[in-house]
């Protein structure tokens, strides 16, 4: 994992001092509310429905155990003893006091954390696949490139006041896309060209929100060393020509659409020609220096524990289910990737208490070289667990509530904080997630249904990524009443697509039954091998409409 050097430490400390000064000037009335707004947003601070909300950055989802313990302490000392994992691999506190935020940021800086650019019209946290570096089918470890982008984008003087927020995601796996890159402002897919050289396929202009779009490819192959100069060209074109007259048309996707992807690509190429050989061009030494932070941990030389696991599975059905669903194949023999699910029914998806944060830290130290990864599905990954210790781990996490073996099933819901916390929301989202989780409480049935992404957002801003859920739920306001609109057929993976709206919306108490009817149609229509998405794509939306609105 990346470790700060004296430059990073110095700038982090300077940033805290700056925000302390800005907060003092705001509290003294020297900064108008609208003048302080972008400053506090770029330090992660929202003012929400019930209290301020602080979004803490977890760069590309990576955290160490000491950082988790510090977060736990901060939630106790400055908040109500819990935190929330977000859909962009970050962590949120829901109740900090405005005047405490500089102190919180200072405490974070001590453990090499920050809240820089987690909000506001700037370049946000770069996200990636939570299995980076431990899966066997990746082109290269994407995390060094995420860190290179993090450093380049941090306090970038030209791009601090973009037309709108800007999100970059990187994916390196050839066969899966856990980072949802095609619904980001820039999605970078690592590839090798015919000569075997490393580079990126560049998607620009994907996104969710009011105008969901799958990002078109604007460059098939960008050589590795050209990463930053090309990003700078894209951002400069966007900064200069992105719309600023209408907040809802200000994302880069609107510009890409207006110019056409080809037209946009031409503008970027023209800009890039001027700067591609500038000192911002990466060097092999610079890349290697960052890569050196992401070397393999001290793995033991092991064989796969196939026989041991087989007998443990045989003796314990719960362990067997968990192993099948929440444990993934590791590139090293004898190791496994474990996902701790934060989706226990009755707990808001992604919420963790201070105690649970400390438990996760202890688990990381005990089982996974002291590191964890936060996923955009709001779960936590222990990436390097010895196979011969999986049973021990499973026994430890079950009472903690992290062992629900529902990963990637219908009840592994992605859900925004919704109307319970968020000032923007039209409707609550957490109670809908809970009602659906209660309706589908039979694990065997969930396994039979297979992989279903159910994504819930409380408003058009789409923090719960509803457009790309196989089943998407969107909270809408109808004359002051909370209603929910359903869309089907979305996907955030390599086959990215935007879901289609099923029809008129439903009241909250109807939702579990409506989801049941949708599931029934799938069960009736599917062929043996088909997932929910396969069936939907084959039969279309009509059979679902007929059943639900019958």
């Amino acid at each position, binding site marked *: 994992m990346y470790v700060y050097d004296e430059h990073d430490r110095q*700038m982090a400390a*300077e940033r805290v001092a700056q925000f302390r000064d800005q907060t003092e000037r705001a509290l003294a009335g020297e900064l108008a509310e609208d003048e302080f707004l972008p*400053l506090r947003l770029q330090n992660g601070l929202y003012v929400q429905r019930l209290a301020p909300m602080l979004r803490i950055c977890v760069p590309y989802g990576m955290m160490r155990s000491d950082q988790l313990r510090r977060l736990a302490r901060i939630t106790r000392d400055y908040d109500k003893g819990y935190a929330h994992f977000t859909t962009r691999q970050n962590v949120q506190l829901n109740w900090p006091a405005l005047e405490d935020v500089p102190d919180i940021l200072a405490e974070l800086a001590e453990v090499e954390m920050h809240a820089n650019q987690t909000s506001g019209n700037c370049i946000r946290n770069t996200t990636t696949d939570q299995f980076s570096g431990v899966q066997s089918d990746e082109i290269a470890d994407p995390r060094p490139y995420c860190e290179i982008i993090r450093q380049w984008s941090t*306090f970038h*003087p*030209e791009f601090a*006041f*973009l037309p709108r927020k800007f999100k970059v995601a990187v994916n390196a796996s050839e066969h899966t896309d856990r980072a949802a890159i095609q619904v980001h402002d820039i999605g970078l897919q690592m590839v090798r060209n015919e000569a075997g050289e490393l580079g990126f396929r560049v998607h620009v202009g994907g996104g969710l929100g009011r105008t969901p779009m799958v990002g078109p490819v604007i460059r098939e192959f960008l050589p590795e060393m050209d990463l930053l100069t090309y990003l700078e060209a894209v951002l400069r074109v966007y*900064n200069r020509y992105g719309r*600023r007259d209408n907040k809802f048309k200000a994302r880069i996707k609107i510009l890409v659409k207006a110019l056409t992807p080809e037209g946009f690509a031409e503008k970027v190429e023209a800009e890039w020609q001027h700067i591609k050989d500038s000192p911002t061009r990466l060097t092999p030494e610079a890349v290697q220096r960052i890569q050196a932070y992401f070397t393999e941990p001290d793995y033991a030389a092991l064989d796969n524990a196939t026989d041991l696991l087989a007998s443990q599975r045989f003796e314990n059905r719960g362990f067997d289910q968990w192993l099948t669903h929440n444990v993934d194949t590791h590139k090293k023999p004898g190791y496994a990737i474990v996902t701790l699910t934060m989706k226990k029914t009755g707990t808001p998806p992604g919420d963790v208490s201070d105690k649970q944060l400390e438990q996760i830290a202890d688990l990381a130290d005990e089982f996974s070289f002291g590191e964890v990864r936060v996923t955009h599905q709001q779960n936590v990954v222990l990436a390097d667990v010895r196979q011969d210790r999986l049973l021990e781990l499973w026994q430890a996490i079950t009472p903690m509530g992290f062992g629900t073996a529902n990963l990637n099933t219908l009840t592994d819901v992605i859900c925004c904080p919704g109307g319970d916390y968020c000032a923007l929301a039209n409707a609550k989202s957490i109670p809908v997630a809970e009602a659906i989780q209660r309706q589908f409480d039979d694990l065997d049935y969930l396994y039979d249904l297979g992989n279903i992404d159910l994504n819930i957002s409380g408003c058009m801003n789409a923090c719960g990524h509803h457009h790309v859920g196989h089943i998407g739920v969107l909270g809408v306001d109808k004359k002051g009443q909370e209603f929910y609109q359903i869309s089907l057929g979305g996907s955030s993976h390599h086959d990215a697509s935007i879901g289609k709206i099923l029809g008129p919306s439903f009241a909250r108490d109807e939702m579990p039954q409506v989801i049941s009817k949708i599931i029934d149609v799938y069960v009736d229509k599917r062929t043996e091998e088909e997932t929910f998405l396969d069936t939907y794509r084959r039969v279309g939306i009509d059979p679902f409409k007929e059943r639900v609105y019958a």
Partner: protein
Amino acid sequence: MPNVISPDGSIRQDNWVVMPRPAEGESLDIPADQPALIPADLWLAGYEHFTGRQDIGVWFDSHDEPEILDGRVNELPVIAVNFPKFSDGRGYSIGRLLRERFGYVNELRAIGDVLLDQLQFMKRCGFDAYVLRADKDITKAQKCLNFFSQGYQAATDTEIPLFRRRAS
């Protein structure tokens, strides 16, 4: 007379006046006794008349294209860029283009909704004169220009990004 802040935070006064764009059909009234900044396209339109004059500079609005002055920037003693609203970040790109692409070496002035917390970005993007919005406390400019001792990226002020400085 505007107070003008320099990159080191020191304050001086000068008497450059910003001439607004004249309404349709009106002509530009350039003061006889005072140096003036005029819209860049009008300077170009009256190029024969204006070039070489040390008392005439130009200003760009945030949606203007600095490309129109390519090759001629150094004929101007002052170029100003207007920030119509502090949250409009287009001026930062204009600043960098003027300096880094077109090689402009004379004064680059930030005008308009120029606030304390944006000075640091302006400085890094090549601005070397800042006319702070009148209601802001100019004595705090120096502090606000100097919160950071360095940056990660290359920009106008630092040609070499940190990743190359680390390597050397």
